[in-house]
């Protein structure tokens, strides 16, 4: 009996002291790791991984290690819901990053919101995402913040009088980008010669481009993902279209130039991130990413990396009580106050307006940089 009591005392002592010692902070990551959306989901996951590993190497947040619980939501809405539920109720994470697609966030976000757990999207750009509720955050800059500046800059530089527009009409990202472009062009009083569309997976744009060529625009505005954008530019040049392109958020990927080489010369793109932005925070990120994953990072990886650092900064200000609900709420309340200087530049949150006065979440407040493509690279645009 004596030995048993001693043993119990030691055990009790050990568990008590462990309550004070480092507890892992569980962070949920729900991204599309398979399926069509994986080309965004995987860089997202990589960005989170890189940031978490760096933080843990420095001793974690307040001595606590970050533990990423990564699940594949396949880019499907039901999977996103299932994964969110698993992370929230089974793995009991403090916060969830993701999902990859805006569509998935529309489906799964309400679940997180109802469970009072922050869902932090890094690649969701659709309108209305943060209207889902006060627990929805995103650091992906909305097109409506970027495109007006991009267009104005391009118009001034090239003295553009009229444009043609082409966009992918079966993808929420490119379609909502188009909606913004349309509004901006109207506001800036630039007539559109013709508006053409394509669908995802389309690889032949010659019919649309021939029509565009016939209208003689001064520039071609594209709301396209990098893959299609590159092919559109190549095919446009192949058809003899010489005017420059103006791109939305989707252009921002090193892939664009891998594919289109010099076809993209003179393209204007606005974005919070470019891989040769000389800011030290970015250069560090780019080098670290290349070293860890053996490939160039893209905008998705950069935003994910920053997002995790934002959350870590918020966690830094907290003392975790161990009560899951309280901690999740505390994290949610601490996030809006965070501002960092990340790979995507200076960042802070901005509360979303909300629909019909209902409480809403937080969007990104970031100034885009305008880049012009020169020598097959994004170059910061100097002219004003």
């Amino acid at each position: 009996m004596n030995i048993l009591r001693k043993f119990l005392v030691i055990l009790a002592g050990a568990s008590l002291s462990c309550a004070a010692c480092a507890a892992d902070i569980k962070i949920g990551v729900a991204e599309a790791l398979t399926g069509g959306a994986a080309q965004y989901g995987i860089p997202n996951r990589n960005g989170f991984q890189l940031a978490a590993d760096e933080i843990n190497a420095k001793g974690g947040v307040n001595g606590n290690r970050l533990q990423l619980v990564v699940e594949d939501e396949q880019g499907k809405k039901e999977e996103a819901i299932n994964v969110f539920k698993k992370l929230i109720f089974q793995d009991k994470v403090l916060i969830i990053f993701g999902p990859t697609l805006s569509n998935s966030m529309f489906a799964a976000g309400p679940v997180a919101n109802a469970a009072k757990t922050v869902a932090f999207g890094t690649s969701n750009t659709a309108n209305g995402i943060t209207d889902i509720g006060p627990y929805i955050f995103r650091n992906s800059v909305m097109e409506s913040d970027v495109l007006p500046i991009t267009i104005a800059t391009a118009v001034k530089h090239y003295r553009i009088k009229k444009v043609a527009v082409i966009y992918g009409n079966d993808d929420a990202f490119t379609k909502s980008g188009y909606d913004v472009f349309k509004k901006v062009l109207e506001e800036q009083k630039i007539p559109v010669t013709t508006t053409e569309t394509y669908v995802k997976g389309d690889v032949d744009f010659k019919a649309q481009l021939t029509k565009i060529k016939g209208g003689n625009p001064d520039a071609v505005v594209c709301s396209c993902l990098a893959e299609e954008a590159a092919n559109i530019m190549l095919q446009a040049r192949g058809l003899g279209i010489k005017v420059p392109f103006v791109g939305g958020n989707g252009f921002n990927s090193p892939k664009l130039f891998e594919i289109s080489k010099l076809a993209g010369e003179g393209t204007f793109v606005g974005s919070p991130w470019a891989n040769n932005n000389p800011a030290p925070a970015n250069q560090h990120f780019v080098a670290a990413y290349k070293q860890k994953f053996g490939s160039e990072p893209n905008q998705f990886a950069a935003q994910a990396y920053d997002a995790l650092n934002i959350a870590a900064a918020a966690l830094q200000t907290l003392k975790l009580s161990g009560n899951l609900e309280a901690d999740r709420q505390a994290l949610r309340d601490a996030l809006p106050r965070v501002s960092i200087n990340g790979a995507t530049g200076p960042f802070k949150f901005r509360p979303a307006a909300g629909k019909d006065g209902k409480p809403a979440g937080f969007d990104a407040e970031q100034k885009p940089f305008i880049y012009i493509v020169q020598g097959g690279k994004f170059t910061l645009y100097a002219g004003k």
Partner: protein
Amino acid sequence: MEGFADFWATYSTLIFTVGIHALLAFSIWLTLACGLLSLANAAFMGIGAYTAALLTLQLNWPFPVVLAAGSMAPAVVALAIGVPTLRLSGVYLCMATLAFGEVSRVVILNLDITGGPEGLNGIPLTTQWWHIALILALVGYGLARLRRSRVGRAFEAIKEDEVAARLMGIDVDRHKLFAFTLGAVIAGLAGALNAHYTFFISPREYGFENAVDILTMTVLGGISSLIGPLLGATILTLLPELLRFLHSYRLAVNGVILVLVVLFLPTGLWDGRRIRAWFERRGGGR
């Protein structure tokens, strides 16, 4: 009790999805029972989902009415296209339904009212577990009764040999249209229910791949009895969850299962006759 609450919180959506897939499998079962291979049921599901979601979002109608509308809208469309297409047989019918499915998807994609590719979001969470359970039970019961009725026997005859059935005096066209339309009703109902627990719908969920998924579940389970579709839907919905560790290869497993079932268990996993025969052999062999 907390264990169950946690389990339910985590897996309720998954279980709902099993129920919805079972309904969809029933809808394909119905058409297959009549000898029709239709790939249109995913599109019918979409029409039902959009009708229901729009009525809820724009007009705020009560849920039962919305469900009813969601099941009637695809029926109207089914009647409209059924009359000309059901004259086609076998492979041609299959392709016509495939074409119809794709055209509907593009139409939904391009209409403003459906939100285009951005879909409809913010659909309120109105579906409860008992809605799905009740509807599934009613549909299952209804189909079981149908099977044993004269209509069901007519389906069987048409499936076996359409020419002979016609000679026997069965109104083949009317029966085929009935099966096709009723299948559309069930699929539409499934779509309406699904829209109201996933908050969001978009055209991408009702395309060719989804039609193939539903077909796979039904073929896997077997069509000789109603248990087949239930079984197939349950297995193919839950299996990827269990196989998460396989990463990209877990979907390949579905493909392997499909091929193996087609090759070795052509009547599907659940075939009443084969199971009875197996038991008899075991008993007799002693």
